[in-house]
């Protein structure tokens, strides 16, 4: 019994330090803390066929044997041949310093006189050398020297910069993040060319050694939020981080809530916009998804294109999205409540038409709606996982053929098909997929409550959801702000409506930021 309780506790209660799937102990673990050694590095890495080693003598001097190591496919071979091996191996007469090369001064002299590259770093620990090699850099070891040189020679093939499929825009930049962290940071840097843009590098994952970059704009982001992000990231101890989703679950405030508490984006312009609002970005190598914290509910219903369109147009689109989200949550439950308990609300003509449509349908409205919603979920999931052309076919088969046949067979009423159809279309108006999923999830309990208690049940479900949303926080920021706690200026400036750029004089009120003036086009 006690072991069951312990297991339940482990599965449900999130610890303060996340020790997930600890990596095993290896024979070379102790060596990693020691000073650099080419031989040791070769011993540790030579069992992997993709690691290449090149032995040579510096400037032809047999007294200084060198070993260069890198990962085949990750390093740029042309760069190493032309700008590293050539200057190191070919004697360059005429420099007095090179004639006096010894093991004690070789590293400094090589950096100063021989290597022309920009990204060159001196290291002294074996673990740093191993990490650098496995991250795609090249490392040069010099005989028995206690120091080595890391050369930034990363040059692997990548997918290139494309427009993100999930965040496409009509008006606005069409570039998206890639799977390569350094390209992503460069895309961000192109947007914010100011020294206040901070990029803090970390490594997570004991086996994957994944590069993470925490980014924010100094004096704009709250120092408390930045330090909280770094603190939470430092509590993650796991063997591998393959996607930003791994981190998301570890650092969010309420892991059991269906609502997303961390925003994400694949677009550099969106990230730049959020950083300028005082938020903090978390970039993970190997994925184009960048996490943005803190997040609030209304942010998930706004898109960056709102800021590129004219203010009035943006207001209209936002209104449509909010209405869409409301319909997506409530439409089936309201239909069930009205047809089951509150027929008095329906105009007589419509009531007659509904009754005629429901004639012959053997199920109660609740069962009918649940059935249709489950079929819709199955169709959506099936369409999502299949190749795109087949996915479209699934949509046609599901919506037209099955839907039509179900109505003709009197399994469901035509109005129910319309309601579920409107619900599905409305949920597509929610721009963030994570929020759309949360909405889909909350629909089911609401329908059951509506089927058993009518509008009272809908109200109870709605208020319970509201209390849940009000109790959520994202990195200390209330999730429902600026609705509650109410911030009138934020509400009028950039929540339900989007004020013209010249009127957005201050950054969002919900973040305690050091510099509230937006510095945009707003007049003082």
């Amino acid at each position, binding site marked *: 019994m006690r072991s069951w309780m312990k297991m339940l506790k482990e599965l449900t209660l999130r610890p303060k330090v996340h020790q997930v799937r600890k990596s095993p102990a290896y024979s070379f673990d102790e060596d990693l803390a020691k000073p650099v050694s080419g031989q040791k590095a070769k011993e540790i890495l030579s069992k992997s066929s993709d690691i290449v080693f090149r032995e040579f003598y510096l400037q032809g001097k047999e007294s200084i044997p060198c070993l260069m190591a890198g990962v085949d496919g990750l390093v740029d071979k042309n760069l190493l041949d032309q700008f590293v091996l050539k200057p190191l191996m070919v004697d360059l007469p005429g420099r007095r310093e090179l004639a006096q090369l010894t093991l004690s001064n070789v590293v400094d002299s090589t950096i100063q006189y021989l290597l022309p590259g920009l990204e060159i770093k001196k290291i002294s620990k074996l673990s740093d050398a191993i990490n650098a090699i496995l991250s795609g850099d090249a490392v040069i070891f010099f005989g028995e020297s206690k120091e080595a040189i890391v050369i930034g020679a990363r040059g692997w093939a990548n997918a290139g910069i494309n427009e993100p499929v999930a965040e496409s825009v009509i008006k606005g930049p069409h570039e998206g993040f890639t799977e390569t962290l350094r390209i992503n940071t460069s895309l961000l840097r192109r947007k914010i060319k100011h020294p206040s843009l901070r990029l803090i590098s970390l490594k997570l994952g004991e086996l994957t050694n994944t590069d993470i970059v925490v980014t924010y704009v100094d004096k704009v982001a709250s120092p408390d939020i930045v330090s909280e992000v770094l603190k939470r990231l430092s509590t993650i101890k796991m063997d591998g981080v393959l996607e930003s989703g791994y981190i998301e679950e570890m650092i969010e405030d309420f892991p059991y809530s269906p609502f997303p508490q961390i925003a994400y984006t694949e677009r550099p312009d969106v990230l730049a916009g959020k950083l300028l609002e005082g938020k903090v970005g978390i970039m993970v190598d190997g994925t184009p998804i960048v996490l943005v914290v803190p997040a609030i509910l209304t942010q998930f219903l706004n898109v960056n294109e709102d800021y590129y369109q004219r203010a009035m147009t943006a207001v209209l689109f936002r209104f449509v999205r909010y209405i869409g989200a409301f319909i997506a949550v409530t439409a089936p439950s309201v239909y069930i409540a009205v047809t089951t308990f509150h027929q008095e609300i329906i105009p007589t003509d419509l009531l007659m038409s509904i009754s005629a449509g429901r004639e012959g349908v053997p199920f109660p409205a609740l069962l009918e709606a649940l059935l249709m919603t489950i079929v819709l979920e199955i169709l959506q999931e099936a369409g999502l996982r299949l190749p795109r052309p087949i996915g479209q076919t699934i949509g046609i088969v599901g919506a037209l053929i099955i839907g039509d046949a179900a109505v003709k067979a009197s399994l469901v009423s035509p109005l129910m098909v319309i309601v579920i159809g409107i619900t599905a279309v409305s949920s597509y108006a929610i721009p963030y997929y994570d929020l759309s999923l949360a909405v889909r999830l909350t629909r089911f309990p609401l329908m059951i409550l509506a089927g058993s208690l*009518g509008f009272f049940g809908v109200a*109870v479900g709605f208020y319970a959801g509201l209390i849940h949303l009000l109790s959520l926080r994202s990195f200390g920021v209330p999730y429902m702000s600026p609705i509650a706690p109410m911030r009138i200026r934020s509400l009028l400036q950039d929540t339900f409506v989007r004020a013209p750029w010249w009127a957005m004089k201050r950054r969002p009120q919900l973040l305690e930021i050091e510099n509230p003036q937006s510095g945009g086009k707003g007049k003082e």
Partner: protein
Amino acid sequence: MGTTFLPVASIVSSAGGRDGWMIVLPAFILGIPYGLMVLSLLSQFPNKNLLQVSEIVFGKGIGKLIGVLYILITGYFGGLLLGQVGDIYERSIMPLTPISLFYLGTIILVFYLCKSGIEVFARFSEVIFPLIILALILNLTLSISRIEPGVLLPILSEGVMPLFWGGLKVAPFVMEYILFMAGILAFLPTDMKEIGQLRREVWRAVFLVGILDMFVAFTQILVFGPFETTRIVYGLLVLGKMVEVSRTVAGVESLFLGVWLGALVIKISAFLFTVVWGLETVMNLKGLKWEIAVCAVFMGIAFGFVRGSVLISEISFVDNYLILPFTTIWILGLWGTARWKKGKNIRGN
């Protein structure tokens, strides 16, 4: 704001007839001095609720006695309000659904809200309040076509004395909030600037709620006439039932009831909070089990009590003969004694 808008018209018209609406705002204004007295005690005894202050000012024995009375009155009233939820739903739109389900649904919400803490409670009220205002405005404006202005005339034909008695019946509404303020005091900021802000908010809240309730009473008297307004206990629900737009939108009281449920949840939660704070202060009983126990007591009172007009009479009785005298005497006595003791100390020094 709570749920004062539901019975206010019936109460004032029973006392003041067609002129009853005039007394709503003045009766609410009675809350201002009491609110200010409570806030003055906050600056004198920071981070303490008035039960703790009572123990300091009156001594432990009398303080505990006041605490027990506070728990009993607020607990009983909270249970009656829970009963009111079931009563409203059963009588208006869902007569065939077992009343226990309304109690259960509401108490779960109330418990969840209280468990989420006072901050979430405040935010919940912040979200629901505009919905209540919107629903009230819709209710009132959509009833304009049914108004008969003649029922208001002649004005003050019975003199002003009926209005005075009517005011005494509305005053307990304000005292309900004073009771809640007495408990929440420990959570309020004690900075002088913020106390000043709280004082301004007391004025603002009293006037806003008073004016809105006055309009609710005014409209109901105009639509139903004074006699019918007195007879219909939940006139606002009937008003909602009568809402009709071009014969397309009709019978939407079930939608309005959703909003009124939010208001009732706020009010019952407020009384759950007061009982929980009282138990913690007076008897040092705190924790989840005691909160569940209070919810169970609320359910027991709701189940045990008769419904309909008897329930309304009982709520009026508690308001008029328990909450009003208890709060007026307690707060006034506490404030006066605390001032007197403070003055004596200053002179002594």
